């Protein structure tokens, strides 16, 4: 017992590995939110009139809305007037090579182990690096352009492909959708835009790294991915954030549209600052992620590994509109100390023979609370719809909580919907077995947790799988007695 307590202490007391502040000069505007701020953001980004209108409509809607309280979370009241809504690294001259990028920034990336240079040469991953809302460097654009793939920052897309942005912006997550969605629609600063043309199979994994950098800056990302007929893309999103004592708000929107026969695979590793051992600080992460399987035989697959953030409120969803379309959701969510997570998925079956799978693995330790909340909805016309959901929870410690809130609503007689969930801790038998074979407690638990999460980790692309396993190890190894 004392052994494992010691291990638990070591793990829980280990400091946030990626906590550092890089001193990049940032251009910020005054704290607070009103129509003028929305206009200012739009003006600074030189946006067309229709986008400003969209933002203003969203802002007015947001003013009428109330902060949702249905999630199993204790959210301290957030003063939305105490947040800076725009921060951009100061513009330098056009960058032709990596040497021209702010050395501090390069250094930041190096610390994170995602050196642009290295990525560029060795892994073949095109990186659209986002630091505090404005894309600084986009690589591999030329290579991608050869296939007709557009992969750029959101603001660039607004300037260069306004017709695409206008067509798809808000088509999956309308600005009226929810409180944080409306907020994002009003003040989103930047993000990524991706368009895969007809019949193109994207030759590399696309990825963005989000960083929240300047203090007191809410980051409002907006990602839009459009996969045209018969195309395929795998998109990676990975996050780390520096250590701060003040809570930071993050309200992002990710929209995915998959046309006929298209497939989009979206993977996330989220490792933002979760707050310290007393529950001080940490990121508030309120994200709306939704994909629309617009055409027949399309497929959208979400995979997420959530280890960070003080509060996570996130439900990657699929609207299965096209016949025979497929939605998938694979998730590992780890909470420790005073972290709270309310996460899960929504699968809305509209088309015929649509299929969905939900696999969610929650792990809670310390005094944290980890909830799965999901909905499977089979509409009247979704003949032959099929869903399988599995949500397992693992409890490490007797002061944490693991909760499951699934909603299953069916209106079609041919639907087959199955849901199962279990909650348990690592059994003494399993531990004993491993130890008896010569593994120490720490390794045994690592092995068991890894095995427990394997089903999800297997869905991740190679690079991410490695990072995810490390994260699991850092967060939890040996934290049970």
């Amino acid at each position: 017992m004392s052994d494992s307590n010691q291990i638990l202490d070591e793990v829980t007391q280990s400091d946030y590995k990626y906590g550092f502040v890089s001193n990049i000069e940032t251009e910020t505007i005054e704290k607070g939110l009103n129509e003028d701020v929305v206009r200012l953001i739009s003006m600074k980004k030189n946006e067309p009139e229709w986008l400003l209108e969209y933002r203003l409509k969203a802002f007015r809607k947001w003013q009428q809305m109330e902060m949702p309280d249905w999630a199993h979370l204790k959210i301290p009241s957030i003063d939305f007037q105490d947040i800076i809504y725009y921060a951009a690294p100061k513009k330098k001259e056009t960058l032709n090579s990596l040497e021209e990028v702010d050395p501090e920034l390069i250094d930041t990336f190096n610390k994170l182990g995602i050196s642009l240079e290295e990525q560029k040469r060795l892994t073949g991953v095109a990186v659209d690096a986002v630091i505090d809302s404005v894309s600084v460097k986009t690589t591999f654009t030329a290579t991608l352009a050869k296939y007709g793939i557009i992969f750029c920052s959101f603001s660039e897309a607004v300037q260069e492909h306004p017709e695409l942005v206008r067509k798809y912006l808000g088509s999956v997550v309308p600005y009226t959708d929810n409180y944080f969605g409306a907020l994002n629609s009003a003040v989103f600063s930047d993000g990524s835009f991706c368009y895969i043309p007809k019949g193109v199979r994207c030759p590399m994994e696309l990825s963005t790294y989000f960083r929240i950098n300047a203090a007191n800056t809410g980051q409002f990302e907006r990602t839009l991915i459009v996969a045209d007929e018969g195309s395929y893309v795998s998109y990676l999103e990975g996050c780390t954030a520096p250590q701060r004592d003040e809570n930071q708000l993050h309200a992002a929107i990710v929209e995915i549209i998959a046309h006929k026969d298209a497939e989009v695979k979206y993977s996330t590793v989220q490792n933002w600052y979760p707050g310290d051992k007393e529950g001080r600080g940490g990121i508030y992460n309120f994200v709306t992620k939704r994909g629309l399987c617009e055409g027949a035989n399309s497929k959208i697959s979400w995979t997420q590994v959530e280890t960070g953030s003080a509060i996570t409120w996130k439900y990657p969803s699929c609207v299965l509109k096209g016949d025979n379309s497929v939605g998938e959701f694979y998730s590992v969510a780890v909470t420790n100390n005073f972290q709270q997570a309310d996460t899960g998925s929504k699968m809305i079956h509209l088309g015929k023979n649509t299929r969905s799978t939900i696999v969610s693995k929650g792990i809670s330790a310390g005094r944290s609370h980890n909830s799965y909340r999901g909905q499977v909805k089979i509409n009247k016309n979704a003949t032959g719809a099929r869903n399988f959901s599995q949500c397992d929870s693992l409890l490490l410690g007797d002061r944490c909580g693991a909760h499951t809130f699934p909603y299953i609503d069916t209106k079609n007689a041919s639907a087959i919907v199955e849901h199962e969930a279990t909650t348990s801790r690592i059994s003494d038998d399993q531990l004993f077995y491993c130890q008896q074979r010569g593994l120490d407690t720490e390794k045994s638990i690592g092995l068991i947790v890894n095995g427990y999460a394997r089903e999800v980790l297997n869905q991740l692309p190679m690079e991410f799988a490695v990072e995810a396993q490390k994260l699991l190890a850092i967060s939890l190894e040996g934290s049970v007695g």
Partner: protein
Amino acid sequence: MMENYQNLKQLFDGFFNQHINNETDSPVSLSVRKGALEDFYRMGFPTNKIEKWRKTKLKDVLDLPYTINTIDRLRTQEQKSIFECEINNLDTDLFSLLNGWFETSKTTLPQGVIVCSIREAEKKYPELFSKYFDRMASDRSNGLIALNSAIYSDGYFVYVPDNVACERTIQIVNVINATSRIFVNTRNMVIVGKNASLSLVHCDDSLSSFGSFVNNVSEFFVDEGSQLDFYKMQNKDEKATVITHNFVEQQRDTNTHANTITFNGGLIRNDTRVKLAGQGANADVMGLYLVDREQFVDNQVKIDHAVSDCTSNQLFKGIVDENGRAIFNGHILVQQDAQRTAAYQSNNNIQLTDTASIDTHPFLEIYADDVKCSHGATVGQLDEDALFYMMQRGICERNARMLLMFSFAGQVIDHIKIPAIKHRISELVSRRLKGELSACESCELNCENPDSVMTFEIDMSKI
């Protein structure tokens, strides 16, 4: 707000002012009633804005005109004969509630077991009454509980003393037979003493079809080492609304088994909340609902594992046909330090038409780590392969479907411990599935031929 709300308010106020005073009620219940009425006016009827009531729409039924039956002891010879129904081969002590009033005069049973009107118990057994009354229902989580506490007309009171195993099953038939649409608030209390046992059958029936709103709150207290079996059969008319809140509190080493079978009804909602307050307690909460036409059945179950070493098991099954709607909302709460809990929850549904709808929400909320909890929920259809197999053996499709549905329902029926009740319910289920059992018939237990065994029209020569 509902247009009819003011009318209903007037109705409730009228009842409260005229029929509840120092003479009718003891100070204990009077103070509860007054507080509860205020609570009700503050909360109003539950609306769809409350998460747990999101899918139960009361608005339509609350917009209808209602009266409250205030005539105490409305007993006629004719109605008396109606209640002389029996479960075949089962010796029960039968009691009845008519339009919300306790009807039977016989109140004492052998071994000191008491069954009487709750209004009578308030006067005759003030100690018991004040000790237990409103202990759990004081959780005013919605306006209907408050309303019931404020203006309940009557209800049953069952008390089993310590160390008494009540041999005969007690059966209570709650009948609505009125000439207009009535609003009934019944309040029941069941106390099982230490090391005692009780089996109780509660039937909700309608004799008239003018429609009614039955708002029923029951509190069950099961003391150390006791056993309670509670069977509820609901066979109401299609204009009937029944909202039931059952609160169960179990002390250590107790065992309760609750089984709710819903055959027919307009809008039925059964809310069961079990608190496992002593170590070693076990609760089985089961239910079967057969829903068709425009019927609506909502089952809400919350099991609160407040202490360690308790077990619970929920099993709810439903067959939903035509335009029927079924909701299941199961909730297992394991509190901090309620270690070594084992809790299971299962909800299986068969949806037969596209116009039917099934919503199932199996929730787990767990704050302890040494637990084994699982839940499963399914919505599906009859197994095509099994159907094909039977048809290929010469069983007609109708019978094959019936057999499959019957075996689906069987899993719940199998858990009924008293053979006579089990047999009766299985027969009623088969009749219901064949379309022979409708709520318009008189009391379900008074069926014409209780000895008939279930038969299927199978031509054996073809097999």
